């Protein structure tokens, strides 16, 4: 399929387009999150256009790879990427958060075909992913389950309950991607400034997942070639579940949002929207609505 044979330049253009659509959708909905979706966008684009074994035209295909966005508040990014991949018409993106929309404020598997699990209460999606991978093992099925977590999400105790069980059952068909964008919604105050400290100091998440028996590697979450390589390698690992710590920038792609915790769930003004879109401009690519 042509859509899965994109070169990295095309992928980057897709991600840029997806960022534009995301900012526009949030501005249109006057609600939602931006920082997390933008940090996750490049990884989601790689997953849906390069890595996941899926059939957008048959979203309930039993042998598809599973993907769970456990950091469910970043769902606008997932919706946009799914629309670009052909799961539903791109114009539907603008129903995000609207009444009766299939694109709920957090992912609802019962409204939108193609969502493998509902999520939104942090940490829960991951535990469901552990169950899916365990089920695949029990039934001798070949699909891989991918779960994306946030770094703030790793505060949740259930994450470590699931991490323990996944390594206990040697779930090598389970791949976790931690979108380590180094900010959570509010977090801990940094001394002497108005800034906030990252959820975890550098390297701590790597060590924690390894301590729970996982194979762990690090990747630049905005280097799409590297992300793809890391995900393909993760899929091939045997004997252990894999955690990929993706180092990202919250608000990535929009200069005035990058690294600023206040953009976790702020809605841009008209001026901010124009500024954001100007920074993401990309002649020649538009949503074919």
């Amino acid at each position, binding site marked *: 399929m042509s859509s899965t044979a994109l070169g990295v330049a095309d992928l980057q253009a897709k991600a840029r387009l997806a960022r534009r659509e995301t900012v526009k959708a949030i501005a249109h909905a006057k609600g939602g999150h931006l920082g997390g979706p933008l940090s996750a966008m490049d990884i989601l684009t790689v997953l849906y256009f390069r890595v996941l074994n899926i059939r957008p035209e048959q979203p309930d295909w039993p042998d598809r790879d*599973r993907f769970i966005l456990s950091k469910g508040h970043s769902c606008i990014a997932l919706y946009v990427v799914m629309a670009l991949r052909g799961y539903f018409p791109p114009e539907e993106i603008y129903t995000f958060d609207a009444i009766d929309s299939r694109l709920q404020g957090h992912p*609802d*598997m*019962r409204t939108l075909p193609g969502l*493998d*699990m*509902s*999520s*939104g*209460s942090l*940490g*829960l999606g*991951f*535990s*469901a*992913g*552990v*169950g*899916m*991978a*365990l*089920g*695949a093992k*029990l*039934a001798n*099925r070949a699909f891989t389950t991918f779960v994306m977590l946030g770094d703030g999400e790793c505060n949740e*105790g*259930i994450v470590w*309950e*699931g991490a*323990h*069980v996944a390594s*206990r059952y040697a779930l090598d068909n389970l791949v976790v991607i931690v979108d380590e964008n180094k900010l959570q919604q509010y977090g801990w105050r940094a001394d002497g400034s108005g800034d906030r400290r990252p959820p975890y100091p550098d390297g701590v998440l790597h060590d924690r997942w390894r301590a729970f028996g996982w194979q762990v590697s690090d990747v630049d979450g905005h280097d799409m070639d590297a992300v793809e390589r890391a995900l393909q390698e993760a899929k091939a690992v045997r004997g252990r579940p894999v955690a990929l710590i993706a180092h990202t920038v919250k608000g990535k792609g929009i200069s005035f949002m990058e690294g600023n915790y206040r953009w976790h769930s702020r809605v841009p003004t008209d001026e901010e929207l124009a500024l954001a879109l100007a920074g993401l401009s990309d002649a020649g690519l538009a949503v074919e609505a």
Partner: protein
Amino acid sequence: MALPAGKALRTVFGETVAALADHDPRIVVVDGDVGSSTGAQIFESAHPERFLQMGVAEQNMLGVAAGLASVGFVPFVSAFACFAVGRAFDSIRVLIAQPALNVKITGGFSGLLAGKTGKTHQMFDDVAIMRSLPNVVVLAPADEVEAAAAIHAMVATDGPFYLQLYRESTPVLFPADYRFEIGRSVKVRDGSDVSLMSTGVQTTRVYEAAEILARRGIEATVLHIPTIKPIDEEGIVEAARASGRVVVVEEQSVLGGLGSAVAEVLSSRHPVPVQRLGIQDTYGESGPDELLLDKYRLSAAAVAQDVEASLLRQRLPILHLEGADRR
């Protein structure tokens, strides 16, 4: 007349799920490190590869169950009621109830008799909490016959269930050919003076209380309500209409449990005074079973006494209401 002795519902759980799994490869059990107490060890002996130990980690256990259900398994969750419902409520709400996934949650050790463990392990709120969740069917069988039938019905019906189970041996109330139906209440005794309604194993004590009352000249209808959600509105209205006096008795908190559910139905469909007997807005304590049942007014003798006292107390207002009804 006392009812004949029977099995503990936890034993029935292990045996029934193991037998069903012989012919249904979708069935698995996820356990929160209590399989040796909940009866799940019986399943493990029969199907070791499908017994999935999750350790002492209930939130994740319920999430794993949701994931298993989403790929086609029928997971039974083996846990104590206090931990399944109390500890893992968010996993149940978001991952199981909201998407209506096919997970069968069992709450072992529900109620007062939790093996001398005291208030941390005595769960009086599982009915109130679970019946508040859309999409979830809530079942509380009375004896071994009904528990086995309920488990069969749970497997045959897609969607999330909560099944209240019980630690102690339970008298047998139903004949072997009893037919259980989700959403249907069962009249286990007929009488025109008062309608007693109960659920779970407590119905066996209420039945014996009705026999005691009969010896004192009070004839009670006993309506057993094994499905707390969806509740049998018609059966409740009919039983309330027959006597005009309703007393609900449950081994649960009177706040939010069956008593509340019955009052919700009757207040809109057939308003009559509803007396709610059960755990009275308090926590439990450890102690021998018989003494606990007496102290918390759930033994057959205590229920008979309290029903009689309630009838005496309510006599005047009830007669007044009946007069008004006849106009």
